[in-house]
């Protein structure tokens, strides 16, 4: 009996579906596929809610525990970890309704909103670093923007499959400083280079090929972004004098206008006074 290729492919797909009979989850649909496994949407029968279920093709001991240690608004929480009857590891986590950052970036958003996303990602990263956890695979596809603007950092990488070209630091071993490189690359990705020379300088410092020339911590990176948003000088850029004056004038516009008005009034009163 001959079996067509399409039937063979269908059987292969069905065979690869996870057997969740021993769990409390009901499979709904595949929502993503990566190098280490597949992510499905599923229904939690006990709590009557939808979850994301990541089934790992390759065992990654400790990955779920690693993420579960990170309780932060910007990091997707892990609900449960276990092993399927076929031996594959899985973990259930919050199902984020929204879109990936690469899809978000295609639509027009003001600079302040884009920097808000960078800030949220940086805060989650800084928290993870404080717990001695590195992401190692930060890229737009691993950042989710929820329906209400919430930002989640996902798919915390492990050494074996870490890094994506364009966002991966050039050094061999990936650590916290490598994550800073990826943050800088994300900033360059989200914010056009023409928007501000100060922001470009921040991104260039973070993505320096020499690890020692980058920001020493995510907190330092975030502090420079803060300074930019407040109209202050940033550490990454030695701005020319004319730009410094322009920035001063922008920050003190009202005061300068009042002083100018006082000067004009004084001049007019002097020259128009009766002899």
């Amino acid at each position, binding site marked *: 009996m001959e079996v067509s290729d399409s039937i063979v492919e269908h059987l292969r797909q069905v065979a690869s579906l996870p057997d969740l009979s021993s769990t409390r989850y009901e499979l709904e649909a595949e929502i993503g596929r990566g190098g280490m496994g597949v992510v499905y949407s599923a229904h939690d029968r006990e709590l009557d809610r939808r979850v994301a279920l990541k089934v790992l093709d390759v065992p990654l001991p400790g990955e779920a525990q690693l993420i579960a240690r990170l309780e932060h608004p910007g990091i997707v929480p892990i609900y449960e970890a276990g092993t399927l009857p076929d031996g594959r590891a899985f973990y259930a986590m919050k199902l984020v309704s929204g879109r990936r950052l690469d899809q978000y970036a295609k639509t027009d958003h003001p600079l302040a909103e884009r920097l808000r996303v960078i800030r949220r990602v940086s805060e989650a990263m800084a928290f993870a670093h404080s717990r001695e956890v590195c992401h190692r695979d930060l890229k737009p596809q691993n950042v989710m923007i929820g329906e209400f603007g919430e930002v989640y950092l996902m798919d915390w990488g492990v050494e074996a499959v870490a890094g994506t070209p364009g966002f991966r630091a050039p050094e061999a071993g990936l650590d916290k400083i490598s994550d800073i490189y990826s943050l800088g690359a994300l900033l360059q990705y989200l914010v056009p280079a023409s928007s501000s020379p100060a922001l470009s300088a921040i991104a260039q410092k973070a993505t320096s090929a020499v690890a020692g020339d980058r920001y020493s911590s995510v907190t330092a990176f975030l502090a420079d972004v803060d300074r930019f948003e407040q109209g202050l000088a940033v550490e990454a850029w030695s701005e020319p004098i004319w730009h410094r004056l322009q920035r001063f004038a922008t920050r003190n516009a009202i*005061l300068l206008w*009042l*002083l100018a008005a*006082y000067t004009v*009034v*004084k001049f007019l*009163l*002097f020259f128009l*006074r009766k002899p």
Partner: protein
Amino acid sequence: MNKIVVGLIFGIVLGAVDGATALFYPETRPLIAGIMVGSSFKGMLVGLLSGWFARKVQSTGWGIVVGSALGLLFAFIVAVMDASSGKSHYLEIMLPGFIVGAIVGFLTQKMGTPALAKS
């Protein structure tokens, strides 16, 4: 440094500077000392009240409005006192006083430590 102190300092300094501009007028040069003292005192009052207002209300717009109103009021009082000597300089005193008050009002809003919120 709280906002009242900020208002006090800027009020005195800007009031003194405003009074010092009387040096440009030959007819007022002999009276410059009294003008500067009076202008500094006027500025101090505007600064104190603007600083007090800034501790109560955190709004740059309202700070400028209140500061300029106070500057106008005290400048009017000085202009009336000056007019009693025979020559009136309402415009020369009130208009700059109005703007100096606006500047003091703005500075008290932007600088100084705000009052702690009551629990």
